[in-house]
């Protein structure tokens, strides 16, 4: 297991959002600013690593007939942990992400990795899988959010970079902008992949 090729797998070849089309809902909803995008990405990554490790460790105990309820219980527990911790220590981010934190439970990426990877592989490689997939998700969110925040608000990470004369393109921080940003990033990635 080569960490570099694993990382490349998470960010590019099997990028959950921009290649597999998983987790589009939070990617659309929480990418209106880079800060929110990173917050969502880190929260989901934490849940993904924890659930991958626990599910992998218990993969021989969990009977396949009840594996989905078992996975969901484990994932939901970690999501609730993130929710509580964030409410207690990062209240602003918690307020900005709102309903999308509890909804990490139904994020396809997490159940998808549990089913496709962690339930079949050893603990260490499942942890690595969680890390690279989480990084891929975060990178995708930051990419989408950068486009939206720069064009739609003239700022990056909350810092105004285009000067006060810039008139922001409101469409980009409104919901349609999320669809446009994802679509054009996806098209760009496909174009690059096709040329290789």
């Amino acid at each position: 297991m080569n960490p570099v090729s694993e990382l490349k797998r998470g960010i590019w070849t099997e990028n959950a959002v921009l290649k597999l089309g998983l987790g589009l809902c939070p990617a659309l909803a929480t990418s209106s600013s880079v800060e929110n995008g990173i917050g969502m990405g880190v929260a989901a990554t934490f849940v993904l690593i924890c659930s991958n490790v626990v599910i992998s460790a218990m993969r021989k105990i969990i009977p396949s007939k009840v594996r989905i309820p078992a996975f969901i219980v484990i994932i939901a527990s970690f999501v609730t942990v993130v929710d509580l911790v964030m409410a207690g220590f990062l209240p602003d981010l918690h307020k900005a992400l709102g309903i999308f934190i509890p909804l990490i439970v139904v994020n396809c990426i997490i159940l998808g990795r549990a089913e496709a990877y962690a339930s079949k592989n050893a603990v260490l490689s499942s942890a690595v899988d969680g890390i690279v997939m989480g990084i891929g998700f975060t990178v995708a969110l930051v990419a989408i959010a950068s486009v939206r925040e720069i064009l739609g608000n003239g700022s990056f990470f909350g810092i105004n970079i285009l000067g006060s004369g810039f008139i922001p393109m409101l469409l980009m921080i409104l919901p349609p902008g999320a669809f446009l940003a994802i679509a054009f990033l996806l098209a760009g990635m496909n174009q690059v992949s096709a040329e290789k």
Partner: protein
Amino acid sequence: MKEISRLALILTLITAGSALLLAMVEKATREPIAQQRRLVTLGALKAVLPPANNSPDQDTVSLVTGKDSKGNDEQTTFYRGRKDGAVSGVAFRVVAPDGYSGSIAVMVGIEPNGQVSGVAILQHAETPGLGALIEGESWKNQFKGKSLDNADWRVKKDGGHFDQITAATISPRAVVGAIRKGLEFYKANKDQIIGG
């Protein structure tokens, strides 16, 4: 029968493990979360009240301010700021039901003589870059020192004294109207609010 009880047992164990984890996390975060909630209220109170040296969130009085759609009484909490024992201002939450998208919650601070000491927007879902500009400092500051006696509580477009926002009249109109109603209630019930 044996199979199903084995499945049930394993699921129960997983769920119990989750419950244990959540109980521990909840216990650890209970204090910080309560603290954060209090800080949010205190922050808004501090922003709108004239200088005070008590804890306004603990010096409150609740009054019936209206009826909800079912005919039940609606209570509003009035927070009193005191400077060396004497009431220096009162803050309370007013809700503008007629925002552009949903209702807007506003914290209004009033000096005992009926002048507005400050306004904070607590909650809204207005369009980013347009209606959301009601959160801007310069827009909120125009209310300072205004009372029912020295200002016409309508936006300029409707013939009043308060700035609307270019291309977004509905949100400012809703906020101005809500503050006016709050001021009127204060004027009519001043003794109860300050003295009670």
